[in-house]
């Protein structure tokens, strides 16, 4: 039985990590800030997966993003997905060589299906995460948006999602633009937009403010993983505590014992690597 997952999403833009609220970005701090004030190497032991997205509006500096990715992923021993502005197989390959195991795509799902096919054939379907941003219109109807929330795809959201699932993507990242950064909790109605028989894992994102919200998302049988991108709600040991409270509620997350690591790795470290 596969376990459910707790995912942390980091939003990067031009050397800084960002807070997003309804897709409006606010600068929080640079890599140094993240490492010193957020103790990233420590919280990475409280998550099951890391997603790093370059959300720069306008032209991106791919080289700088890859350097940040390398620095973040060194010492992070979980699957890592990265994306933001990937438009070619070569761009994806560079991310995969900078510490990523999977590539997150959004706009090409709607504008360049050939790229999705190329990515799947080159790296395997399991390597492609289809990210879908969803917002209610003034009539309360759900609509799918692309291009960092600038382009409305029109038609019904359920139809758009069904078309994304048909493509060779390994999993779906469902993100509520209305709840994004609000801390009000997930929009569980997004899950009603999915087909009845869902052949691919679903990551739910947008709106988490506390551990109860994570528990609400993960309790839904249609959800395989819950994500949060809020840099402040889980600052300090917030993620560690949230994970602990989920496990105490009986959520079937993988169990990581940091004490075990301390017992086994920090004692007598020098003796472990001698030639046999």
């Amino acid at each position: 039985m596969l376990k459910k997952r707790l995912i942390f999403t980091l939003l990067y833009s031009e050397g800084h990590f960002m807070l997003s609220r309804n897709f409006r970005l606010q600068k929080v701090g640079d890599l140094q800030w993240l490492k010193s004030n957020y103790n990233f190497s420590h919280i990475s032991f409280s998550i099951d997966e890391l997603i790093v997205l370059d959300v720069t509006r306008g032209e991106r500096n791919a080289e700088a993003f890859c350097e940040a990715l390398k620095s973040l992923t060194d010492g992070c021993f979980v699957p890592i997905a990265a994306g933001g502005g990937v438009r070619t197989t070569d761009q994806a390959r560079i991310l995969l060589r900078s510490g990523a195991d999977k590539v997150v795509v959004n706009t090409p799902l709607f504008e360049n299906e050939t790229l999705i096919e190329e990515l799947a054939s080159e790296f395997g379907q399991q390597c492609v995460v289809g990210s879908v941003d969803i917002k209610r219109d003034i009539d309360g109807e759900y609509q799918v948006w692309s291009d960092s929330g600038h382009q409305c795809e029109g038609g019904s959201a359920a139809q758009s999602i069904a078309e994304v699932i048909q493509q060779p993507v390994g999993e779906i990242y469902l993100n509520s633009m209305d709840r994004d950064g609000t801390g009000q909790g997930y929009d569980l109605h997004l899950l009603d937009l999915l087909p009845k028989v869902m052949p691919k894992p679903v990551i739910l994102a947008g709106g988490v403010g506390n551990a109860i919200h994570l528990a609400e998302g993960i309790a839904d049988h249609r959800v395989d993983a819950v994500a949060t991108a809020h840099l402040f709600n889980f600052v300090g040991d917030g993620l560690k505590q949230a994970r602990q409270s989920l496990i105490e509620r009986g959520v079937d997350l993988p169990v990581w014992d940091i004490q075990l690591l301390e017992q086994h790795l920090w004692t007598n470290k020098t003796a472990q690597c001698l030639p046999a």
Partner: protein
Amino acid sequence: MTIKSNLTVIDYGMGNIWSVLSALRYLGCNARVSSDPDVIVQSSSLLLPGVGSFRKAMIALQERGLDQAIIDAVQRKGSKILGICLGMQLMGSRGSEDGDMIGLGLIPNPVDKFTPQEIGTGKVPHIGFDLVHSSPESTLFRGLSRAADFYFVHSYRMLPEELKGNVSTCVYGSDFVAAYEQDNIYATQFHPEKSQTNGLVLLKNFLAQKYDA
């Protein structure tokens, strides 16, 4: 602090060795990366990673003369080896991904695709964290819970039938080989370098293991 080690990570152009090296560095092990058969024959400790198709990977090993170098090091010199994911599969007797292909033969069982009969409603590939049931005699799992979580991503598997040695299993519909160890031969179908604290402890156990041929 980095420690000089005699561990060689075999580079044959398949898969991401970045994360394996990152985990080894974290453990204080400064491994050598090589695609040179002479270096590999002389290493007392080998790590065979890999992501991709069995057939392509086996051809890549053969083209570089690495298949024989690995067999010589492990079977003649008694060097220890850890195969990870595709690396474990390549150590099998043969694989059927993209057409039948002979393997390194360090583990006697073949590697085939999950069948619908085995997995029932389960999806292929088998991706995510799943429980591995290890035996108390296992050295790789020393210090870990007998049922511990590890990260899997694969569509092909080895079955435990008639396999001698120490076999740890995962249940995906039915049992398959999650890890194997016998004498100087170690292998994991999962990715220890993507399995948090459990994976780091397992890698440490491999590094600490002495095998006297």
